[in-house]
């Protein structure tokens, strides 16, 4: 008995002693740990207000429990399906339409045989990444202004009627997606360029011996070499499908375009921050986080599976 206890103690003691000897490391870690506790875990706990009737004066603890009232109200409101549809449509269509552009840019830069021009194109293509979402939206609004917008002028030359594109629900998604492509293609290409530099040059030499032209080499060597990266990036992006850029939506939408532009996050903002319906907004936010969580986990599972099998 005694001996066993001794063994058990022996097993734990060194670990504890080691931990104690590392007190300096724990001390250095303490502020960061506190940060995560206070600014990540406490708000998660604060989500209980989704099940209460929270008022600014009653506080979280004293406000009465109301069960699923707010969720029921949300699911039965006509807003729910509209928001659901809009969030998914915007996330999904911007994934599908934006995804190929960084790949194309990377291929293009890879095929460019003038090094100075290549570097210049790359440098220029990063520039929009540095612009804030407010600046990009402002540019979009100015460029599409029917009276003085340059882009509106071009569109009109192509037969579009001169109108307020920005207040027309038909154009909202296109505006959102194209401005996103404009801003993120350059920085998005970096990862693909990195994957290109990892392709074995012997493969190209072999292709040369076989008499492959440049297009064939792109198709048979370059693209297959990029494929694992493309697959991983696609899965990561799908996981983020619900993380629609709500800041941009907030800046670009207006009551005229709510029918396509209003998404969960903007609704939470209007209900919670502007309307001060904190509990209701928290319930909507919780629902959105739960759906987002499921999607992220699913995409992680897929990427794990793919990583296991991608040793072809």
């Amino acid at each position: 008995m005694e001996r066993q206890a001794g063994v058990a103690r022996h097993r734990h003691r060194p670990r504890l002693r080691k931990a104690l000897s590392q007190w300096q490391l724990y001390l250095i870690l303490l502020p960061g740990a506190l940060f995560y506790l206070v600014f990540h875990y406490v708000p998660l706990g604060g989500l209980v207000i989704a099940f209460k009737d929270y008022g600014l004066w009653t506080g979280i603890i004293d406000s009465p429990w109301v069960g699923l009232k707010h969720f029921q109200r949300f699911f039965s409101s006509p807003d729910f399906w509209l928001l659901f549809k809009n969030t998914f449509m915007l996330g999904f269509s911007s994934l599908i339409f934006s995804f190929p552009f960084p790949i194309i840019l990377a291929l293009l830069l890879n095929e460019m045989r003038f090094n100075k021009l290549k570097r210049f194109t790359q440098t220029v293509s990063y520039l929009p990444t540095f612009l804030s979402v407010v600046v990009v939206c402002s540019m979009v609004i100015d460029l599409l202004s029917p009276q003085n917008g340059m882009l509106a002028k071009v569109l009109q030359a192509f037969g579009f009627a001169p109108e307020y594109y920005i207040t027309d629900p038909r154009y909202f998604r296109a505006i959102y997606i194209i401005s996103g492509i404009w801003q993120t293609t350059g920085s998005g290409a970096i990862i693909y360029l990195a994957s290109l530099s990892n392709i074995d040059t012997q493969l190209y030499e072999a292709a040369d011996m076989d008499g492959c032209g440049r297009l064939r080499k792109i198709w048979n060597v370059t693209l297959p070499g990029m494929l694992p990266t493309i697959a991983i990036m696609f899965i990561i992006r799908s996981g983020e499908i619900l993380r629609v850029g709500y800041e941009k939506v907030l800046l670009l939408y207006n009551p005229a375009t709510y029918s396509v532009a209003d998404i969960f996050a903007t609704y939470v903002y209007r209900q919670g921050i502007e309307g001060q319906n904190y509990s209701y907004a928290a319930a909507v936010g919780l629902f959105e986080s739960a759906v987002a969580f499921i999607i992220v986990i699913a995409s992680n599972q897929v990427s794990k599976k793919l990583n296991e099998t991608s040793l072809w």
Partner: protein
Amino acid sequence: MQVKKKIRLDALDIIVLLLAVVIILGTLLPMLNVFSLSLSNPKYIVGGEVSFYPKGFTLNAYKEMLSSSRIPRAYANSILYTGVGVLFNLFFTVITAYPLARKELVGRKWIIIFITITMFFNAGMIPKYLLVSELGMMDSMWGLIIPTVIWTFYLTVMRNFFEGIPNELYEASVIDGASEFQILARVYFPLAKPAVASIALYYIMGHWNSFFIPSIYITSAEKYPLQVVLRDLLNTAVSSNFNMAETIATPPVALKNAVIFISIVPMLIAYPFLQKYFTKGMMVGAVKG
């Protein structure tokens, strides 16, 4: 035989060149438009005659910008929030990454899980807003800095960098009798400067460009950072677009574009020096992300 290989253009080269020209123009022309609008006479702006060079050159928009304290003050606020913010970001990110990079730390795995979980569960806008309000950080610079002082993503980048530093350096420092604090400050931090520069760039961009958080946390107009003021200028533009009758009035477009221009000038100046760190950050991010 030393023959300089001459590049013979084939069809693919032509296509690549054309596309490159499209990309370069497509990226630069909208920016040139901003610059031109800020320097043009409102008469030509309303007439839709301003494209990629100023028409009826005038500095009025810039004079107007400087005539009231609103925009210079917002500019100063942005510099203050960004400067203080990034120092806090870097300090807390580095000191948190260091212990987590020491593989022998007891409980390391659990602490990393504790941190990683927060990337999957997001409490969302409302509880965070209420917390900041509860902590009395509303309408103050600290509300913009403290609640996001560590971005988990950059913490991971930093930790990975520290983990790549050979352990012999650590052991040698221990033999020399250095404490953990000294090892971090004198050995690890100096070695990590390139990584610190990369994450600093991203933190700076984050602060300088953020508008949503300040727009809900900062309530007094005299504390607004530049992006929030810009948002207000944008809103007046949108609502005047929305209300078609109003657009005849002198557009605030020139003023707005002047503000945009001065808001991106610091980045344009720093860009050539920072580009290296920018690509590096993207690569690390993509690999680990």
